[in-house]
């Protein structure tokens, strides 16, 4: 995984990570995620592709649907949680 700080530089990726950190049980399509975080669907799709590549987001694909969920990797989740706390100044 890339440096989390660099992932956070991208607004769409940052919104996605904040969303999944708050809602780790969520599985949704790009359309659903864009709605929850009030983001542009194209930018969100691009960021999701990048996050899937980085192993932060997992994709579940079928012929007609691609859904995205937060990684189950404990270490990555911990790192992101830690960074979010710093980011929010907690």
């Amino acid at each position: 995984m890339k440096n989390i700080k660099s992932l956070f530089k991208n607004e769409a990726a940052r919104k996605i990570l904040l969303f999944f950190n708050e809602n780790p049980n969520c599985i949704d399509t790009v359309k659903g995620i864009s709605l929850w975080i009030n983001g542009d669907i194209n930018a969100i799709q691009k960021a999701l592709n990048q996050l899937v590549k980085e192993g932060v987001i997992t994709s579940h694909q079928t012929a007609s649907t691609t859904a995205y969920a937060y990684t189950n990797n404990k270490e990555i989740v911990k790192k992101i949680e830690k960074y979010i706390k710093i980011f929010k100044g907690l």
Partner: protein
Amino acid sequence: MSESEIKEKQGFFIRFSKSNSISVFRNLCSKILKKSRCAFLDAEYKPLKRGSECNHLSTGKYLARIKSSPSREYMIFKCSCNKICLSFPVMQGSSVYGHVLFAHLNKEPDKRVIDAVRICMDLALKEFQKEQELNKLYETIRPRAIALSTIHTIHRLLSSTLDMDELIERIARLTLQVMRSRHCSIMLLDESKRHLIPKAVIDMDKEIPKTDPQYKKIKLGVRQEGGVAKNGETIFLRNSVCVPLVEEDIIGVISARDKINGAPFDRFELEILITLAEQAVIAIKNAQMYEEQERMAYGSIKTLAALLDAKSPNTFTHSDQFVKMVLAIAEEMKLPREDIANLHYAALLPDTGKFSIPDEILRKPGSLSNREYDIIKKQHLESLKIIEHLEFLKPAMPIIRHHHERYDGTGYPDGLKGDKIPAGARVMSVANAFEAMVSASPYKGKKISIPQAIKEIENNKGRQFDPEVVYAFIGVTKKPEFKNILGASA
């Protein structure tokens, strides 16, 4: 008043003092009460924050009350630096939550000014209450809306497959995902309903092979899962949750264990798992019905093939090797699952079209005359009428009809060319030619060796055969499984 009620009141007042509506109110009041300082005092007149108000207020030396309105809607004080202070209680019902105070006024404000400020404050309070209600609604509804959307997405993911193995694996992976657990298993009851058969066991940390003891069947009533399957009651523990899969009866159980962050499972997650189990049951039942339907369709086709074979052995049906070869090429080409199933049906009855072709033509060694070839073309279509009423064979009909077409358009019955020939028919054409060349049959021409047959097919790509299918065929012949396909003829 209880301690928690006091804390709740204080919390409300602190949030109000920091809200957007109070900022608007302060700006407005700074224009009405010029040069005044605004401060927030709790119900006991103690300032919430030191330093922002009159210095005397922060030390409590201000209590020189001049007057208050009869219903205590406002009060006017004089602090020890001889300045006027105006305060309004912030109330909900009859409870006072705190006071908003304007200090350092140069003179006592008249009644109209006091009324205007009071009205502004009432509006600010109402606005803040609305904001609070909206926030509460947002905090309550949003997670549920996200959960609902998750369940809807899961439904879409599960309903997109009818392959049981793929479906069970998918249910397990999605369970692992939504429950944030390290371990998930899905077990289904066997036909006797006495044992649970583990169908998927997934662990985050390691791949669990089907030979692992975790894949051993368990008796009903034994272990957590067996108990749930027997009683139909959910088990909800700190580190594990097990839910029955119920249609009309119990068909199995789904369980999740150990959250990745080590936290205990909560009620919300239990609700999600129960809903997921409901979705899973529908998907499993659909897949089971589809499997049953497929079994019935294969049974009917095999019966039909046996009937045709009884009339003339090895004329209308092909060998097992042929069917295996057709399926292997289709898989190599990565054709969709549904197309492969239809191709399978077609491969079981490829030459139904020969049914009404006279035996002397069918079994004639050597090449056919033009008249004989015309008879074959005509009778091929006539014979297909035997199976056209079988609904489940409809998607396979074009494959059976067109598998004697040639890629260059010189085949029969319709002289179709290239991609106009159904993909399944192009696959069957290659497998058909290969089988004819390598099998010993008095009416199929001279038998040649397997490498020669492969070479012959390769030489005819683009003419008789679709080059893409030929590439896939060559790919199949290079695989170790090719020997299994050929079986005894290898």
